[in-house]
């Protein structure tokens, strides 16, 4: 332990200077000698069969090296789903193995040429003909009678406690509404990119923009029947991922094309490919019904959600998760349904489920508060449960009421006028809204790390983890410095390479705690090794790992006892360095306890009286996510998530043509993520109470910040204008009711 810990300090990001100066090489820039460039040709129909592919023109275009279609693609096995923890895919659709078309945008050919421009041009000359089959595209026609999925992220698709419908009918006060959210696309600023070089028939290196290095390695092994140790996956910097830089067809196709071309091949997706080839967040239709007594306590909580998947996909968006966790009620009626459509796959997008699910639930709570004439924050305190409301497990740590209280004070919630359409500044109506946030704590099994100490007194932590801009390298160095008892500048953190010990995917806000758990295990192994090396005259002779502590660059008997610096141990043993490696303990902490992050979002909006334009003018997020390792990087995570939530509230919508299943606005010009001018100063604060069961007492911070955001905006728009918009995004025409 460090006497003066660096955990908790606002240490600047280690990757900052390289990124700001342009020195950081992203996947599309990594120099690989002899690289040819690939371009995908994608289907323009949603369902049917390829009847012909004419390559005559394309083959004779300048610079063409190879063209792969389902006619000459090698046999490739199906990539394992992310949920199996053996892979990182969202779909079981075969990749270029048959003539079948499953969605509009499915790759049907990959063209390899000397330059990206030549590949692009040649791809435009590939002529594909199709026999159309009837496509499942119109959600509204197909949603009735949609089946339950086998599971929702491993949980039961339905939770029925008591007779919620009967309780609803009997309730003194009722809200029963349907809320809708559209398809969303992640829009990381760096498009997906991958480069594959085969060294021989059985080994390859893949440089990939990914948040799942180990699982990509496993996927390639499975798909191409290779040995794991013959596959290297490298991903040093990733320009944002948000859940979408997992395993898609493009990496598999790039690898297959590189084998066909007999040289390294690079494939950088165009922005429209990102929209059409990879997945997004499903649209949702959600019924939330609440029954309440006059005192505001809930007699019924019903949340029924219908989401979509592509054909052969395996991801059901967990919209109903907040309703399972947040509030106590006498009865629950929770149910999820899935409609299979000929669309790209539904994939994880920042706070999958919770973000859009909380829009429905938290707007409904606001509607109930309105009916009961109770302050919406006050109302929430009345159904604060003593234990997890649908599993009965005790919470490891839940300080939501305190977050409400402190957040309300800081935001000035008490000054809000509860009457809608009652505050105005010139042409702008002003309103304030609130919503609760929650996100489950997870620690995925399977992570490993190594810790190497060297005779010059430095330590290096290695794990195949990911840095997508959230500060992984920085916070892990902080943690390791304290854990090893070293100054921060003597601790190195190496990641981004499958040669390092295996890591879990960077998803589910789980990477930080998962790495910490593996560093704990690796340090323990290292300590044991170091003790084994000590000579019989060492004060440490005969001591076990539990008898010692790491501090001041060495190992010492507990409670201020004598010890040895590890350079000393290493030198005496004639070693330059020593490495300990370990696997994170199984995540048993969630066996008996419910572990969740919480938060509350407050916002103020201004709504233009004439035009209906909504501008967010103030934001406060107050979070309860356990201990914070680095306030600077954590703030940035919360703030970024709130920005993304504001986008979902006001402007983001991936538009499909329901006749063809084609994404129409597959560009950043037409898919509207927020711009700077849309974002007010965002205040972020947290309670910081440790979660006693989490490694480091901290929980994930990457996703909870997005939860509740859209609802807070919608509730504020109601407060400003008296108009309830239950259908995202909240555009001027909806606000004006035109």
């Amino acid at each position, binding site marked *: 332990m460090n006497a003066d810990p660096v955990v908790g300090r606002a240490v600047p990001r280690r990757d900052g200077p390289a990124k700001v100066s342009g020195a950081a090489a992203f996947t599309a820039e990594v120099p690989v000698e002899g690289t040819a460039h690939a371009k995908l040709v994608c289907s323009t129909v949603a369902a049917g069969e390829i009847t012909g592919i004419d390559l005559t023109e394309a083959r004779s275009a*300048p610079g063409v090296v190879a063209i792969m279609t389902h006619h000459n693609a090698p046999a490739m096995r199906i990539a394992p789903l992310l949920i199996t923890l053996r892979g990182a895919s969202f779909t079981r659709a075969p990749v270029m193995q048959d003539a079948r078309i499953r969605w509009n945008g499915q790759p049907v050919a990959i063209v390899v040429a000397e330059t990206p421009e030549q590949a692009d041009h040649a791809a435009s000359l590939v002529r594909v003909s199709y026999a159309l089959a009837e496509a499942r595209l119109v959600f509204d026609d197909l949603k009735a009678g949609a089946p339950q999925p086998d599971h929702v992220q491993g949980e039961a698709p339905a939770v029925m406690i008591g007779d919620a419908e009967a309780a609803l009918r009997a309730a003194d006060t009722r809200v029963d509404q349907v809320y809708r959210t559209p398809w969303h696309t992640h829009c990381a600023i760096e498009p997906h990119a991958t480069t594959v070089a085969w060294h021989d028939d059985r080994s390859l290196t893949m440089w990939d923009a990914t948040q799942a290095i180990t699982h990509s390695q496993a996927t390639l092994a499975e798909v191409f029947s290779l040995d794991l140790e013959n596959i290297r996956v490298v991903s040093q910097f990733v320009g944002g991922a948000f859940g979408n830089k997992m395993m898609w067809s493009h990496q598999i196709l790039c690898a297959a094309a590189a084998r066909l071309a007999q040289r390294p091949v690079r494939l950088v997706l165009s922005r429209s490919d990102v929209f059409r080839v990879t997945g997004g967040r499903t649209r949702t239709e959600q019924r939330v019904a609440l029954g309440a007594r006059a005192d505001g306590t809930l007699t019924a909580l019903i949340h029924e959600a219908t989401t979509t998947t592509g054909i052969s996909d395996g991801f059901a968006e967990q919209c109903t998760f907040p309703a399972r966790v947040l509030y106590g009620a006498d009865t629950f009626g929770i149910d999820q349904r899935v409609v299979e459509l000929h669309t790209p796959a539904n994939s994880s997008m920042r706070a999958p489920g919770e973000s859009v699910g909380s829009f429905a639930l938290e707007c409904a709570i606001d509607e109930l508060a309105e009916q009961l004439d109770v302050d919406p924050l006050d109302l929430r305190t009345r159904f604060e449960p003593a234990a997890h409301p649908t599993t009965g497990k005790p919470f490891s740590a839940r300080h939501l009421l305190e977050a409400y209280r402190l957040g309300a004070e800081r935001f000035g919630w008490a000054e809000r006028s509860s009457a809608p359409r009652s505050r105005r500044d010139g042409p702008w109506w002003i309103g304030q809204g609130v919503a609760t946030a929650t996100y489950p704590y997870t620690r995925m099994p399977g992570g490993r790390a190594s810790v190497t100490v060297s005779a010059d007194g430095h330590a290096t932590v290695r794990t195949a983890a990911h840095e997508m801009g959230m500060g992984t390298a920085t916070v892990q160095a902080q943690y390791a410095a304290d854990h090893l008892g070293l100054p921060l500048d003597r601790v190195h953190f190496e990641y981004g390479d499958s040669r390092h010990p295996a890591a879990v995917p960077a998803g589910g806000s789980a990477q930080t705690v998962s790495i910490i758990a593996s560093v704990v295990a690796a340090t323990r192994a290292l300590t044991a090794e170091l003790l084994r090396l000590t000579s019989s005259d060492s004060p440490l002779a005969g001591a076990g790992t539990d008898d010692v502590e790491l501090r001041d660059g060495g190992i010492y008997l507990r409670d201020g006892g004598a010890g040895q610096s590890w350079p000393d141990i290493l030198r005496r043993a004639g070693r330059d360095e020593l490495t300990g490696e370990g696997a994170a303990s199984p995540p048993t902490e969630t066996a008996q306890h419910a572990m969740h992050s919480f938060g509350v979002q407050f916002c103020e909006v201004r709504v233009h009286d*004439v*035009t209906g*334009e909504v501008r967010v003018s103030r934001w406060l997020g107050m979070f309860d996510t356990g201990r914070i390792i680095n306030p600077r990087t954590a703030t940035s995570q919360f703030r970024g998530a709130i920005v993304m939530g504001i986008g979902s509230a*006001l402007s983001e919508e991936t*538009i499909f043509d329901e006749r063809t299943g084609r994404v129409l606005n597959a560009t950043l010009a*037409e898919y509207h993520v927020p711009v700077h001018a849309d974002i007010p100063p965002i205040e972020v604060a947290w309670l910081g109470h440790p979660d006693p069961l989490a490694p480091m007492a901290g929980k994930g911070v990457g996703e909870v910040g997005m939860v509740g955001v859209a609802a807070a905006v919608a509730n504020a728009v109601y407060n400003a204008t008296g108009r309830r918009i239950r259908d995202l995004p909240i555009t*001027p025409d909806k606000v004006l009711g035109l």
Partner: protein
Amino acid sequence: MKPFTYQRADDVASAVAAAATTPGAVYLGGGTNLVDLMRQNIERPAALVDISRLPARIEIGTDGRLRIPAAATNTDVAADPVVRRDFRIIAEAIVNGASGQIRNMATVGGNLMQRTRCLYFYDAGAHCNKREPGSGCDAVDGHNRMHAVLGASPHCMATHPSDLAVALAALDARVHLAGPAGQRTVELRDLHRLPGDTPHVEHTLEPGELITTVSVPAPPAEARSAYRKVRERASYAFALVSVAALLEVRDGTVVSARLALGGVAAKPWRAASAEAVLTGAPATRASFERAADVALADARPLTHNGFKIPLMRRVIVSTLEELS
């Protein structure tokens, strides 16, 4: 993208000559629209003649008109002190469009000649009469939220996306052209054409003609003016609707009025009938509402853009009220 040749012109004469003698040549301004379309294989020119380095000095001519060379960047025009003082709505329209980076590249000529943002026009797989005459129009029964409510035809209902053109239409700007057959001038309001049954013919330029300059007469000294644009995100978005208005009021009576509407038609829509209603009328909300009704009398909604008509009405009325 299809392979193409590239040459840069240093003056108008060599630009016109290069375009005339190079088969398949088109002019390249800042490329912020053309290059995007080339990347999508929507535009497939064989040759580019880069006119972005032509002289670009903004000045007041001897006739008192503001003269903006076509190669001037949108940023330079919006930052020009004379423009900001005497032609404010030009600057307002520009800074309400695109993003800082795009405006730095975009030229005035390119802005006026930019193509529609119809999503089907941008998608080589869709049916589009504008892109491929006679192939049909996927927007009719498709996603047409951003489409026209005025002057559309069953063949095409795309809008012209420029903000600048709307301000220039309200200011009675003229467009000066040079081409193989010599020089000529057209009124800005006659530059763009309504779709009719030839939506691929978007403007009145002859093949090889280059916009050299846009000239603008000084607005009436007493007139107040405004450019109002509505969009769901605060910047970097095309207009749902926009209004450029000039209003001259004396003793409570409208002396002169000019009204141009954006985001509603294939061209900047000068609402002449509304101007006639306003002129001589009392400067009251009732007059403005009547004018808005007249301006929109022929407006026809499609499946998803019906909101544009009442929204435009609200914006016309409030803008005129603000100016009175």
